[in-house]
């Protein structure tokens, strides 16, 4: 579908667009918040706030791609703000809650543990890992969303993968997949 400037929409179409955008991107926004906060009620509240903010600024967004970029950026920054405001402790491996949907990998335990390990990363590396592996974003795109240098993103990714690998080996032995 070609990009359509949303600013050109009439009020009625804008409303229809907004509802359509919510349905299309609710999973993306909620999942970023859920994987970051590991708390479903908080993630839902945060995701709702993101869409309300989208509703207020919809007329300034120029295209579908712009909306997607905007949603990822605002969700990421709100996750960090929420985390700092509430001074949420980093989730330990034993305390992380179960994910909402059942894991579909051949080994659900691995998936669940990996979510807990990701949730135990510091906030910025955690976001970077989520954007990389949930949204399949390139480091350059992640850098644009988080307003960070690309080298910093790559450095965080490299360190986080090493940490995660180490945690997997230490807690689960030599994992076979």
């Amino acid at each position, binding site marked *: 579908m070609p990009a359509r400037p949303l600013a050109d929409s009439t009020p009625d179409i804008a409303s229809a667009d907004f509802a359509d955008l919510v349905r299309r991107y609710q999973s993306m926004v909620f999942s970023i918040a859920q994987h970051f906060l590991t708390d479903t009620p908080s993630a839902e509240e945060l995701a709702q706030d993101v869409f309300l903010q989208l509703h207020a600024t919809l007329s300034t967004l120029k295209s579908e791609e712009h909306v997607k970029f905007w949603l990822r950026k605002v969700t990421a920054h709100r996750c960090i703000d929420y985390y*700092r405001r509430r001074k949420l402790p980093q989730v330990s491996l034993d305390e992380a809650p179960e994910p909402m949907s059942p894991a579909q990998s051949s080994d659900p335990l691995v998936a669940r543990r990996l979510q807990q390990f990701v949730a135990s990363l*510091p*906030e*910025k590396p955690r976001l970077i890992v989520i954007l990389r592996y949930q949204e399949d974003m390139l480091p350059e795109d992640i850098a644009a969303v988080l307003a960070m240098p690309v*080298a910093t993103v790559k450095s965080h990714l490299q*360190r*986080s993968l*090493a*940490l995660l690998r180490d945690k997997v080996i230490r807690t689960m032995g030599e994992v076979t997949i």
Partner: protein
Amino acid sequence: MSTLTRKLVPLILLLAFPAILRAQELKLPPGVEQLASKAKETVEVNMDGPMLHWASKFLSAEDPEERKAAKLVANLKGIYVRSYEFSDQGAYSAADVEEVRAQFRSPEWSRVVGVRSERDGDNVDVFFKLENEKMAGIVIISAEAKELTFVNIVGPLEVDQLADLGGEFGIPKLKTKPQSSKPMAKADKGEQK
């Protein structure tokens, strides 16, 4: 030259020396400086004392990583990094790297780690500078197959601060103490001093 002048000149030079001496202790040969044009990615950081102090004002007290970084850099006099990443192996000269290493074979520097690996070509050296039994600086030279990195941190760096640096950035805490007489770890025959 009068007796007074002869006595004053060395004093003047001695007083001026700290001003003319650059904080950075690591001098890169021209062959290394030119690598930027060959590298696919170059990172260059040159931050002296005032710049460090200014940049550290923007570190957030709410971010645990930045909070520890602020504490670490509080007394530092400089941080200098050159890192080159190449597409292919063999992009830099071992002789140039050795020229840099040779700068730290002096009594004030101790090589606490010197690893040579013929298996994957990774060579890493870590030098500590001691003044009055306290850390006064560190130099890291990492020569990998497709990456060459020089790090020079200048300043009264406590060993436990170095450990915090390691712990904060996801690195297990170092327990090594600088001992110049301790045999260096070597993966293979590799380089001889």
